[in-house]
Each structure stands twice: as structure tokens, then as C-alpha cells.
């Protein structure tokens, strides 16, 4: 038996449509054989490993404005699907208003991989471990989707259905992700536990974000997203509700961390056991809350 350590990509046809309409129509015509791709950082690996065998790869980069990153002081941030993660990290508006997004992108693989990797691709790949998904969830991301029936928007919180499964239908192409304006005094943190300090997939990823909120009983609202500990990227809503009702502080953070560990349903795999993951969710949630709390403006 020979083992090919360097499998070439299997055969397929590369298609570069001129417009979104053309791309979408092609995807509808070949629902089981055609697959859209952006940077290819997940798709190519999965093809080499034999998990997927598309007959057509549809290059949806560079289509109709999907390469723009723009900020509107009234509406918020729009990141085109084709904008790579290094551009997000380097963007002054992201650094000023959405530093959590930059922090999440920086935790992904390596610089040269991030030249190709995109947030939209990370979201559509729908891995529970997706590093940028937590930040997009807590920042209330909304996807712009182009489909056969025209353009629509979908909140990210309803988008994930299982590992690799989303609400996207055949012919749908994500063209951008939008974020509303962030409240004053907000701060967050992405704490990622990998097998090494940089570049690995997450064993556990915890995103925490909070801001002063006069409507919350505690005076502050928090949002928490958990990666790699459930079939889908998870918003820990029970924990968020607990935090909005209890004044922030060491004991409340500890209890919130315990609730976060109880809210997730991790599995055993090569990167870590379920028991370890739960313990790490508890530790990282507490640390994340403490870190976010340092940055949040006091009421």
C-alpha cells in the first residue's frame, strides 16, 4: 500500500462568473455538483481529503462589490464577502469601532493563510470551531445573501443548523456581513485555547462582549459566544440573562462561568475531551468577563 502524503486536488472545472446573477443561476442548475468558494482555505483541504467532490468550483470573489469594506457612521460596518482577514485586521475603522473582530481574525491560522481566508467563508463553512464566528454573533452580524429570488438579509444568530450546515439554499451566495453601530463604552475579548499558542484550531473559544446598558438591571449587558463545544457556534443566552440581572464582579463572573460550562455540550475528539472542554469553558469565560470588564466604561 502506498500513502500519498501530498494528494493533488481531484479534477473539477473552475468557473469564474461575471456577475452574481450568473453565479447564482449556475449554482441552481447544478445543485449537487457546483460549490461556491472564496479563499478556498477550507474547500481545498476538504477536497484533498476526499470529503467533498464538487464537479464545478464557482469563484465568487470579486463579484459586484463583494470586495469592499465600508463604514457608515449612521448604520455601521459592512464587510464584503471577498474581503480577506488581513484587510479586516488592518482596517482603521475596524480597529477603532470593532476591535473584537480584528482580535478574532488575528487568531486564525497564519498571516499567509489570512491573505486568502475571509470572514464570510469562515461563517459559510459553519464549523463549530470557526474563530471569527463568535465575534460576528455577539456583534449582531447580519448576512447579505443573494439568491435566485433576489437579495435578502439573514441574522447570523439563526444561520447555523449543524456542523457545516446553514440555512443557505442552492443558488444562495453570501455577499457581505453587516454590523450595527456599537454602543458607547463597549469592550470584549476572544479567548482561544489551542494546542499551541498561535495558529492552531481552537479546542475551546470563548468570545465575551459587554457595554453599559441603562435598560439592564445590572447597568450592563454582556454577550457570550462559545466555539468548539456544541454542534453549532453557540450564544450562551442564559448566561447573558444572568449577567444583565447581577452587578458585575468576581463572584458574579464566577457563577456566569459555571453557567456557561453547563450550557455547552462538547464532544471528545483528538483535540480534547468533553470534560476538559467544559472545564476550559468555565475558566475562559471567567477570564473573558474579567478582561472585557476592564475595558468597559463604567456607568
Amino acid at each position: 500500500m502506498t500513502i500519498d502524503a501530498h494528494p493533488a486536488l481531484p479534477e473539477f472545472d473552475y468557473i469564474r462568473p461575471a456577475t452574481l446573477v450568473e453565479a447564482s443561476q449556475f449554482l441552481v442548475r447544478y445543485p449537487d455538483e457546483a460549490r461556491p468558494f472564496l479563499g478556498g482555505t477550507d474547500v481545498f483541504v476538504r477536497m484533498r481529503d476526499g470529503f467533498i467532490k464538487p464537479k464545478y468550483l464557482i469563484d465568487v470573489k470579486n463579484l459586484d462589490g463583494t470586495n469592499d469594506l465600508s463604514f457608515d457612521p449612521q448604520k455601521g460596518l459592512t464587510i464584503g464577502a471577498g474581503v480577506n482577514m488581513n484587510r479586516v485586521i488592518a482596517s482603521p475603522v475596524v480597529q477603532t469601532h470593532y476591535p473584537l473582530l480584528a482580535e478574532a481574525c488575528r487568531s486564525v491560522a497564519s498571516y499567509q493563510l489570512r491573505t486568502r481566508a475571509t470572514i464570510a467563508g469562515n461563517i459559510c463553512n459553519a464549523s463549530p470551531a470557526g474563530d471569527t464566528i463568535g465575534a460576528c454573533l455577539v456583534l449582531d452580524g447580519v448576512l447579505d445573501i443573494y439568491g435566485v429570488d433576489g437579495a435578502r438579509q439573514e441574522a447570523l444568530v439563526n444561520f447555523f443548523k449543524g456542523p457545516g450546515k446553514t440555512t443557505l439554499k442552492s443558488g444562495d451566495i453570501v455577499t457581505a456581513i453587516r454590523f450595527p453601530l456599537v454602543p458607547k463604552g463597549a469592550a470584549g475579548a476572544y479567548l482561544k485555547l489551542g494546542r499551541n499558542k498561535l495558529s492552531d484550531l481552537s479546542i475551546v473559544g470563548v468570545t465575551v462582549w459587554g457595554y453599559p446598558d441603562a435598560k439592564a438591571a445590572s447597568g450592563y449587558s454582556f454577550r457570550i459566544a462559545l466555539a468548539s463545544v456544541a454542534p453549532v457556534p453557540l450564544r450562551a443566552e442564559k448566561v447573558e440573562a444572568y449577567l444583565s440581572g447581577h452587578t458585575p464582579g468576581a463572584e458574579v463572573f464566577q457563577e456566569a462561568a459555571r453557567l456557561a460550562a453547563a450550557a455547552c455540550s462538547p464532544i471528545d475528539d483528538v483535540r480534547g475531551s468533553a470534560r476538559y472542554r467544559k472545564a476550559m469553558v468555565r475558566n475562559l469565560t471567567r477570564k473573558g468577563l474579567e478582561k472585557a470588564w476592564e475595558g468597559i466604561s463604567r456607568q
Partner: protein
Amino acid sequence: MTIHRITLTINGSSEQVDVPSNLTLLQMLREKLALTGTKNGCMAGECGACTVMLNGEPVNSCMVLAVECDGAEVLTVEGLAKDSVLDPIQETIIDQGGVQCGFCTPGILISARALLDRKPNPSEADIREALVGNLCRCTGYLRIIEAVHEASERQLQTASGD
């Protein structure tokens, strides 16, 4: 499988190449253009041995389709030296002993060059972060990091006319 005719600039010279859809940039460089300085390590975007610059930014060439590079500018390790004068990072990696088996070196040089282009005076943390996608199993990295430091210093000295 469709064959695409693409035109691109590699190390400053224009090339026309016929590439099947599934050919990677890495395969095209090595197998069609005999530019074997770029190495094939993992074919999964993890080891960085195949790093080249695509339109001025480093990429894992095993994770880019050749056909996507139509009209692009590619710089490989073969294009780093100009008129037989080594790039400062090539000089310093030799001076510091940052090469042992050499397999990771072309990718390291490209990643380091890209870092120095975007940040001429990087900190040690910057260097470590920029090289996180380039695995080296021989050197232990310290001499490579030192080489990038020194290249940065030499470059800044040259720029200030010392």
C-alpha cells in the same frame, strides 16, 4: 477538465501558461515553470514551505489555484535577489546561521520579506507572529528571528544613508 490559458508576471517576467482547473499555483511554479525553489511540504496550508507573494502579499501557494492568478504578479524566492545582489534577509539568514536543512528557508524568506515590507521595524512579537505559518524543524527559530531583526536594521541603515 477545462484548460485555461493565463498570463501572469513571475519575478518580473511575463509568462503565458496553460493550466488545468485543479492545478495549484505551487504545482504550476514547480512543474510547469521549473521554479523549484518554492517547496511542497504539507499541501494543506499549514507548513508555509510553499509561501510566495501574490500581488505583494504572502500566500500558501498550495492553497491557490493557478487559474486564479490570471493577470497577477507573483514573487518567488528566485526573484528575491536583484542583479545577483542578495536581499538583506537572504544575507542575514546566512550570516546568522538561520538555515540548516533549508527546506523551510524559501518560505521563511518570503514571509520575512513581506513583514519587512509592511513593517520595516518589527518587534520580536511581530516577527514571531509573521512567521507562525512557517514551520522549521531544525533551527529552533531563534537564529531566524535574529536574522529578521538584523535585516530590518541593515535595511533602515541603508534607507537613512549610513
